[in-house]
């Protein structure tokens, strides 16, 4: 393990971006990192709101029209190496908002997140369980630590 990955493993910063879902996933993700019950901070995973210090971007929500540009801007602002976790069924496939009418998708929704930025891990669930979010972030760690 090089010095880079050694130090990176001690400060994984997760940024949460919210693109128009129902708020349920966001609270669960903030809960899984901050709250004392799940507490990802004890594994040195921190929540940040600054894209310039983030390593992992967690995206929730089906990406509404007006959220597309901010999402792209945030993704651009994150320094390499960066990885994206799409969390919740809205981020994975547009959720009920896009698909409730079957073959005719809703016009309000630009998602899923894959259409806009490359996604490295997908966490299913409506709403996601905190354990699943942690598992999703943890599976990305080897890729993140081995990157230059």
């Amino acid at each position, binding site marked *: 393990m090089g010095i880079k990955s050694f130090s990176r493993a001690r400060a994984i910063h997760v940024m949460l971006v919210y693109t128009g879902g129902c708020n349920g996933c*966001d609270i669960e993700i903030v809960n899984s990192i901050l709250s004392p019950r799940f507490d990802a901070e004890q594994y040195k995973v921190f929540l940040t709101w600054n894209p310039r210090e983030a390593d992992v971007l967690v995206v929730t929500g089906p990406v509404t029209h007006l959220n597309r540009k901010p999402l792209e801007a945030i993704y651009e602002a994150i320094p390499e190496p960066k990885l994206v976790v799409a969390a919740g069924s809205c981020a994975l496939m547009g959720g009920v908002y896009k698909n409730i009418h079957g073959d005719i998708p809703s016009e309000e929704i630009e998602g899923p997140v894959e259409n806009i930025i490359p996604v490295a891990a997908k966490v299913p669930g409506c709403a996601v369980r905190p354990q699943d979010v942690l598992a999703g972030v943890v599976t990305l760690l080897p890729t993140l630590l081995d990157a230059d």
Partner: protein
Amino acid sequence: MEEKVPRSNIIETEIPLGTVHPAALEPYRVRLFVEDEIVQEAEITIGVNHRGIERIMEGLPVEKGNALTEKICGICSNSHVWNSCRTAEIGLDIEIPERARYIRVIMGELERLHSHFLYLAHGCETVAHETFSMRVFYLREIVMELLAMIGGNRVQYGCPIIGGVRPRCDLDEAKLLRLKTDMDKIEEGLTGFADRFLADSILISRITGVGVLPTKQAIRLAVTGPTLRATGVARDLRTTMYEYDDFDFNVVTQPDGDVKSNLLMRVLESFESIKIIRQAIANIPEGKVVNRDWEMFDTDMIESYIEVPRGTLYHSYYLESGRIRHCIIRTPSMANIAAMQYACIGDHITDAQLSIVQCDPCFTCTDRAIEIIRR
């Protein structure tokens, strides 16, 4: 305190925040107009999260539409299904079994607890007191697990259906016992939190007199829910709802309308919720939980108002051959946005975010097409 009046002259310095900003959890845009670091005028714009829920509900079968209303908000999800089912029940004259009514009240009050705890945690975090925030998050986890026990999911429980509650949410002896013991735990934890909170003189001096919303103005802006009650107006829709007829509880009010009043309001209201849940556990009647004996027919516009954790929730739709027509949903934050704008005025710029948070914003559920009709 008299009414707060925004300045009418042109203010040069504008501080825009948003739509996506580190200080705000949800995307919204707030423009603060500042003079000498004092906010003179604030303007909140929403519309980023517009998903067109009312539009996609048009023409859906009513059962499917009810399930969709749950996805409007991830915090008060149960309230939306409850009120949507209640709307259909009012229109179709469906009698609800007594036991189902009690379970709905239990779910509603558990949701109020978790919403208020989230508010307290978020409020304490905005004041930058992380320890208190963590304490409340820890308490909230007990409520979340109770909700997961009853509904099977931590956020979207899908408890009410037309005619009662989902049979999965029926409460047996073991579940009632766990509810009872956990209520004791929550009460103990919350009492401890409240004692420490009030004994912390630094925190209290930080939040007293900040973000005041005058009573007169609150009434004029049609502010609802705990934000209104924190300005001293005892208005709670639960006193008029037939579901709460059998329960004995107080409508809590606080005098000042500032951040301190708002935070204490939530703490005191949580105790009332615990009281209601205890009464429901003690008196829950036997019987079936869902009444399937009803028929679908076309109706005129049906309206239903209930009190949800953040204020008054309104659902209305027509039923036409079992399908939803012209659905309108009005969430409490819609009225409270005006309160947030006025609460910012006259305070230091660093308190602006706190003044917005004290009105318990949930812009996610509020985002839908709005037409303001001036009369």
